[in-house]
């Protein structure tokens, strides 16, 4: 079974530039998550999709971050314009529908973003 795919793996941009990250979840996984992991901290959820609908985007800085999952499969996360504090690893995870309403999440390798 192929895992969660993310690209690019690394990105360096200057502040005020824009950047986009791509994620392809495990085949058949209905739920997709984007997390931001700042150095020295645990991952923090930015947005959660169930198929192509948004379940939770309460911690997404909507003035600069956007995400979409148009066909309920792969997803794109965009930052425009980037700030220095956006330097982090952006993790994508996916999960399937399972029992008890809680589903194990499988993580991709992440995209390490450096904003200079």
């Amino acid at each position, binding site marked *: 079974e192929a895992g969660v795919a993310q690209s690019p793996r690394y990105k360096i941009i200057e502040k005020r530039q824009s950047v986009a990250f791509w994620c392809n979840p495990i085949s058949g996984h209905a739920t997709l998550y984007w997390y931001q992991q700042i150095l*020295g901290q645990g991952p923090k*959820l930015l947005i959660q999709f169930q198929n192509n609908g948004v379940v939770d985007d309460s911690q997404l800085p909507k003035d600069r971050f956007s995400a979409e999952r148009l066909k309920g499969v792969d997803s794109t996360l965009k930052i425009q314009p980037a700030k220095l504090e956006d330097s982090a690893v952006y993790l994508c995870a996916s999960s399937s529908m399972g029992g008890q309403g*809680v*589903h194990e999440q499988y993580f991709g*390798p992440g995209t390490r973003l450096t904003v200079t």
Partner: protein
Amino acid sequence: AQSVSQHNHHVILSEAASLELGCNYSYGGTVNLFWYVQYPGQHLQLLLKYFSGDPLVKGIKGFEAEFIKSKFSFNLRKPSVQWSDTAEYFCAVTSSTGKLIFGQGTTLQVKP
């Protein structure tokens, strides 16, 4: 609001030493608890999980964790660590939507 606190930020042990990493959470409802591990250069991967039932949970690679509801704790243990256990360890809790809330992580360094 839910939160997770990991007490140890950086732990250094010699091989064969015993390990216990502390994790406390705050959440008033039914909790589902996880420990994730990130080996150097690798993805976050699930070490073990607790949904219900036996509060002593066994995971991969000889790890176990005990859910103590009265203490809001889910500490990770291993009787004898190996050099290959060097990694970062994250405790996490989920809400009913499946959102994972992570602690800040503990870096474990095992000296050969």
